[in-house]
């Protein structure tokens, strides 16, 4: 099974910190009251926590500060009016309250080669081009029902659509913004979409668990 190939990967270190038994053992918590969050990934539990090594520094490509713009230009805090931008704490809350109850989905909007290099545990990869109604209609028609959108009398009905959090590589990446633009163009209600602007870069800067697909 593909997901057997998935493994927990902590940025910058070869060995992952073993899952700790109780909250007291966590020096680096997510918030004072939340040391970690357990996430269901294809029926297995993956613990979202921060790297406990106080000396740890980022050394991978997310340590990089500069990329050519365009295309890697800094995104506004609110790229689409009406779509709320959120941070890591809200994302962890979303995992707990929405993803665990199947009312919400976290969308990794990047192209699969990025996704395979590491994603947020519990996130689903929906590359932004597949959501483009002008270039990918055939696929879009199949993606939307999977997100709870129903077609009634030839029109999309979003009343049972899942809540979404969309993210990409970080504030310098526009893949998430493109995905949200496509979703809004289709008619996905803005209040059902949230934007995690920090993306993989901020996620890793905070030493949060990254799920990587084994090569």
């Amino acid at each position, binding site marked *: *099974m*593909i*997901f057997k190939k998935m493994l927990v990967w902590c940025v910058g270190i070869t060995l992952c910190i073993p899952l700790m038994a109780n909250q007291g053992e966590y020096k680096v918590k997510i918030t004072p009251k939340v040391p970690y969050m*357990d996430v*269901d990934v*294809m*029926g*297995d*539990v993956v613990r979202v926590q921060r790297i406990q090594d106080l000396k740890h520094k980022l050394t991978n*490509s997310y340590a*990089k500060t500069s*990329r*050519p713009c*365009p*295309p890697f230009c800094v995104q506004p805090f609110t790229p689409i009016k009406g779509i709320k931008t959120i941070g890591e704490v809200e994302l962890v809350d979303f995992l707990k309250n929405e*993803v*665990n*109850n*199947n009312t919400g*989905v976290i969308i990794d909007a990047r*192209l*699969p*080669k*990025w996704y395979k*290099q590491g994603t947020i545990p519990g996130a*689903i*990869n*929906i*590359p*932004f*081009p*597949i959501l483009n109604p002008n*270039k*990918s209609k055939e*696929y879009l028609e*199949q*993606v939307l*029902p*999977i997100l709870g959108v129903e077609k009634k009398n030839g029109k999309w009905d979003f009343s049972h659509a899942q809540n979404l959090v969309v993210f990409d590589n970080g504030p310098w990446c*526009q*893949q998430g913004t*493109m995905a949200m633009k496509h979703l809004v163009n289709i008619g996905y209600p803005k209040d059902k979409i949230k934007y995690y602007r920090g993306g993989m870069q901020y996620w890793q800067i905070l030493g949060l668990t990254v799920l990587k697909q084994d090569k």
Partner: protein
Amino acid sequence: MKKLILIALILLSSLYAMSDKELARTIDLAGKQRMLTQKISKEALLVFMGIDLDKNVENLKKSAALFDKTLNGLMHGDKELGLVATSNKEIQNKLLEVKKLWLPFYKKVKDIYSFNDITDKTFEYIDKNNLKLLKRMNEAVFMYANLNKSGANKLKMAHNINIAGRQRMLTQRIAKDLLLYQSGVNTKESLEDLKKMQELFNKSLEALLEGDKKLGVAKTTLPKIRKQLELAKGQWQSCQSLIKRAIKDKKNQELTRETIECLDKTKDEMNKAVKLYTLSLNRQKQVLKLNSLIGNFLNQKSNSKHVINLAGKQRMLTQRISKLAIECKEELIPTSCKALEKFVALYDKTLNGFKKGDKELKLTPLKSPNAQKKIKEIEKVWQPFKEAAIKVQNSNGKDKASLEFILKNNEKLLKLSNDLVSILEKEHGKDLNYIEKAQLKIVNLAGRQRMLTQKMTKEKLAILSLKMTDYKSKLKKSVILFNKSLNGLIKGSKELGLPKVTNEAIKKQLLKVESIWNKVRPFYEKDKLSKKELVLLLKVNPILLDEMNKAVSLIEKSTDY
């Protein structure tokens, strides 16, 4: 008329088409029917025994009405329950079998809660038929589950949900057996069944918690579900001692009531676990469906890249063939003439693949009229070029006229091959996103380097061996272009619109190319070369091409440059 019938059929089939969501709901409700058969029997016995009469009469009415409504919903559809009738004939027949058993059963149940006919015979009937009803309903559930086979059995804990669902039914069956035993109906069999079901419940609960390969049950690792199973286990353990006592103390109605309540609570706890399993499985199904869709989407996209890549390689082949033709004549490398045959065949196969498709090359015929028009133009130049190359090979380079023809026409063929790349890029470029467009520029430039490795060597050979002095300026230009592009790829170039390479793997590969290039560049630039130097250049040339090829692949596959 035929049209009308067809429309009616289409409408009917769409009425019966079941979405995944509806199927999941159907399986869930059909599964609950199994539990209801036992719950109804238990409640009928409670009424018979006069335990909490008012409450149990109400419960019995509700349970029986729910079974009836759900069964009808499964057979004919029910909007309120979210049920759609299935078009599957086997399932319809099975549901008819259930209905045949249910109707007289329901009549007896109605007699019980209306106090019309409460005799030992009524309960003998319930005792005799409830397991038959359960068995038929169970068969229907499995048939529905089989409709849902598309990858579902590959999911982790796919079987756990069935086992957890069965536990709910077992609590009711145990309660019913206990009541049958206490009321004196079929005492021996009831007690045996009770113990058997207790054992099954224990074994199944343990399997859910720790896994059981024989039962095909995976260990439940998700903390939320484990916690729920532990709650159910705790509840179940407190029921065990109550059951033991209730078997011994047949007449103690209070104890019986307490035991039944305990079993009902266990059922509720197991129900919560089933819901949690359902959530996890639905998430898994969602991921699998999206993965499959995205896989198809990417295959379609990578096909465009594959076609452009092959067209790009054709440009390089025009130069490689020309270079090999000269090499063949000069007899500098023993394998050159044979290699000529190989690359002529490859160019020919790819060109045919563009026109008619080629399974081996994973090519379907190019649909674009512009591309097909260009292919026809290429063919006109390629046919005599190909014949000339074969003549050079067959004559071991002695056929001067053919060699001259190749040298005269190779750049024309290169230009036409290049035109085809441009057409394909323009047409497939419409499907590219902004990242791919940015990447394509780098890939194209790196791809052109492959062709230049061959072009430079061909030009050097033309100058040295064929004394074609007009190639001197061409070679100079090619060397400058190769060098400038390589530098641009490594250090970045405003003029070429290239960023500086920062990806370590790509950088390492480009530096490898640079190191080879630095060694062979003087050979291209020197006016005269010894035979030894020329042979060395010819031997290193395929290595340079190969290393450049690796760089192109890395650039294509990497997320950043």
